[in-house]
């Protein structure tokens, strides 16, 4: 439980950080809250020779609204997500999800950028970002590019992020007022990653679903955007029969590992139960 040797950098601008990363390639890693990276270093599952601490870069902080987009700086902590009134009113599902991550101590340091860049299927934010159709701003030596959260994840710990790039911001389209939402997470205890979790946002009009997005956490080696499940529900009245079909469609795309949380079959079924419960709560919250 002791990390290998590394050199610590603390740049004060994104450009400087990117330059250090570009210099050291695969040997360097950005450090945000450190609450995923440091444990992996202690287990020597990660052994970067250079740690580039992003904590000294003021530009990476803050939550702002720009027309129908909300932009969140990568270094915004999970605690700050919970505290934000803007998010609380426009995208309340972010607060709900953040509150289900780890415990207050971890949320004071863990960042949204680190959570989504990490590439661990156990993280809660990636599925939520897919559900919300967020995109990530990646800054490298060549400048910025934007990648949709739905395209970002390739396999466990493999993402579209290049070694010399930093994820600088997360951009999320604002959902219409009165939308329904829920994040349902089954876990063994506080501080545990999900056995299975589901993010649901939907809008209702005249008693039927006019739009629905669903994504799943920790039931495959990447977060899963459940396109088909969402499509099945769109236009429906959330009648039992349709919900059952949607749940089956969500379960069908899962490919969970068997671990201490339970065997694969259980986790697939729990993904279904989470979808069902999230739908019920989202529908209850939706106006219209």
């Amino acid at each position: 439980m002791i990390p290998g040797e590394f050199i610590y950098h603390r740049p004060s601008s994104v450009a400087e950080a990117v330059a250090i990363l570009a210099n050291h390639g695969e040997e360097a890693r950005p450090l945000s809250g450190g609450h995923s990276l440091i444990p992996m270093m202690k287990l020597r599952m990660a052994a970067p020779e250079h740690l580039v601490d992003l904590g000294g870069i003021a530009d990476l902080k803050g939550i702002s609204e720009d027309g129908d987009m909300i932009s969140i700086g990568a270094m915004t902590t999970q605690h700050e997500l919970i505290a934000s009134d803007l998010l609380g009113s426009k995208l309340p599902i972010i607060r709900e999800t953040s509150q289900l991550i780890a415990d207050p101590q971890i949320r004071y340091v863990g960042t949204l950028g680190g959570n989504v860049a990490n590439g661990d299927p156990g993280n809660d934010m990636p599925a939520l970002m897919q559900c919300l159709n967020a995109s990530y701003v990646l800054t490298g030596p060549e400048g910025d590019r934007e990648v949709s959260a739905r395209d970002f994840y390739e396999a466990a710990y493999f993402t579209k992020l290049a070694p010399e790039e930093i994820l600088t911001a997360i951009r999320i389209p604002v959902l219409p007022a009165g939308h329904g939402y829920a994040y349902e997470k089954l876990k063994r205890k506080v501080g545990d990653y999900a056995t299975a979790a589901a993010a649901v946002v939907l809008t209702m009009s005249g008693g039927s679903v006019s739009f629905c997005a669903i994504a799943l956490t920790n039931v495959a080696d990447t977060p899963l955007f459940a396109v088909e499940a969402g499509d099945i529900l769109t236009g429906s009245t959330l009648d039992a029969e349709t919900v059952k079909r949607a749940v089956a469609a969500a379960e069908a795309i899962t490919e969970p590992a068997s671990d201490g949380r339970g065997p694969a079959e259980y986790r697939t079924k729990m993904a279904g139960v989470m979808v069902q419960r999230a739908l019920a709560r989202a529908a209850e919250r939706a106006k219209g």
Partner: protein
Amino acid sequence: MNDLTPTREQREAALEGMGCKRKRVEDVRFTQGKGQYVDDVKLPGMVFGDFVRSPYAHAKVTKIDATEALKLPGVIAVLTAEDLKGVNLAWMPTLAGDVQMVLADGKVLYQNQEVAFVVAENRYIADDAIQLVEVEYEELPVIVDPFKSMDPDAPVLRPDLEGKTEGAHGPRKHHNHIFTWEVGDKDETARAFDEADVTIKEKISYHRTHPSPLETCQCIASMDKVKGELTIWGTFQAPHVIRTVASLLSTIPEHKIHVVAPDIGGGFGNKVGAYPGYICSIVASIVTGVPVKWVEDRMENLSTTSFARDYHMTAEIAAKSDGTVTGLKVHVLADHGGFDACADPSKWPAGFFNIVTGSYDFPVAHLEVDGVYTNKAPGGVAYRCSFRVTEAAYCIERAMDILAQKLGMDPADLRMKNFVKPEQFPYQSALGWEYDSGDYHTAMQKVMDTIGYRELRAEQKAKQEAFKRGETREIMGIGISFFTEIVGAGPSKNCDILGVAMFDSAEIRVHPTGSVISRMGTKSQGQGHETTWAQIIATEIGIPAADIMVEEGNTDTAPYGLGTYGSRSTPVAGAAIALAARKIRNKAQMIAAHMLEVSEYDLDWDVDGFQVKGNPQARKSMKEIAWAAYHAPPPGMEPGLEAVSYYDPPNMTYPFGAYFCVMDIDVDTGVAKTRRFYALDDCGTRINPMIIEGQVHGGLTEAFAIAMGQEIRYDEIGNVLGASFMDFFLPTAVETPHWETDYTVTPSPHHPIGAKGVGESPNVGGVPAFSNAVNDAFQFLGSTHIQMPHDAWRLWQVAKDLGVHG
């Protein structure tokens, strides 16, 4: 007397003696982060040791090459079994009469077994060096399932025992067999089963788990080569035993070994045994001449030092059709891992498992325990319980519920019917114990009345009907556990550790100004001895607890004792304390008589001093007497006021309790929610009700964890799974149920203050209460017994197998 003279009640309150909810004095430093733990001790020139461990569960070790590691700057030495052989320490004796490798000697028997010990200038270098030690292994077939250990063609795990047909506890019947332990009357029991109206038989497993104290095992060994003295700081629940063992193993005379156990961050049995880390640190310090520190990390702790349980019990009960039990038969297959390192009194290979008749009047019983080797870590410690008592309590409490189910009887009524009756105490159990005291019916009735037991059953019935009609997906269970503990090891007639009788001790010194220092052979790891020991002394000699300093853990100053585990401190050391205090009071009485110029027989003890019979104004307080003891003792009397007492208990004590658990289970996720948990404990005389409550809360929380998910798992090739707090279930305040506590008081008739010990009761009684609640919930759907742990996925699986998911 004027208004300012304190009343008797005020004087009594000022003592903060027995019965007082005195705040824990040790918490002043603990809550400020000012405790002094082993890892806080930093000695000049200290270096660090760390282990190279085996990735395989069973393999030959064909080569260990430390060349590259030794090249790393800051690496001082790399010890292997070959080095230890030079000092005859490649193997060490275990408490259970087996031997255990200190470092892999030709082979490894479990994953993470210690293979080499790297000594370096700091922990970072030591860890870097570990990666550089090259070890070659040749994998061998692995036994994980204890039921396969004694297969005819099972691989030989212990070639060192090849051909040994006699073990420390009698004949061995297979090369992977350790012992058979048999108690009770086999023929009479068989007869009871032949004649029974009803019998039940069930395999009841208690899975492998771990005590997991927050502070892991650690030590510093410091050899002073000039003086020839060895000092060891360590997380030791039994420091004197460690000193004796260290002397026997190292051949350093015992008076030249100083063992210090500073503050300990929880033990729960994990810190009773001697581990390779201690031996290697000692050898490394002898070799290098500088202090060597060894600190276990969490994964090492969970995967190597002392698991608990892993008992697979087949229980059978014979009964009449009215529910009267007539016989009990239990067979246990005990998985001991690669070495038999169980921490039990020497003659008890299965601890006190023969308490398995529980709280019930079984006329006959028969018990057989087979211990076997597997490719798992050694241990088998009493995780917050007296030796194997929690396994026994779980076995009988599950079995009684299964019998109730078969008879169609209410499990509370079945228990009431079969309890040992108050007038039967002292009660001779069919498996050889003499229960000192008890009043089971009163305790049980009190809880049933308080929680409204019959109403809960009615509610459960209604919920079951609603479930069947499809109106709810939740089922409700009521778990009952009525346990009898056996603690206070123990009487020298049946208890010793490596030949040392299991007495305990206290020394009390009253200073001239009337304050006190006292030392005991026990060692608190969170139990609050500094608080409670002072309370016993305060009541016995009338000096305020606040003026009494309690010190434990330094073998140079404390009298010899066998340490703290198995809830033995209060039954054994607590008695020694009371008796040492009484010696002081007797001497004080003589001094007071001299001071008051009366005969000592003319004096009465009154709270905090002696007064002349019939003339209470003529009195001497203990403070005054203490001064006189040093200033002007009676002619012919030795000055001073101090005493030592060594106490060999005449019997064990038998705390008991009634625990009820109400639980709701979501069949679609398997998530169980404890709605209510009511724990009534009878631990005899209550020294500090607040500390008792704290102990009960802690023990119940552990019981909850164990029953509902805490487990050391292995895959089929012996990889230990979940040996970190990410998976090993340590509940937080959020998951932990709300505890309601209650008590009755049945003092122990043979203990000087009537106290029985309580620290472990909640773990012993708690586990069956939770498990019975789970089982009770599923019973109406057709299940008889569900194995622990009851984590969500397993309960979901049960529901699925019962056809509940449609």
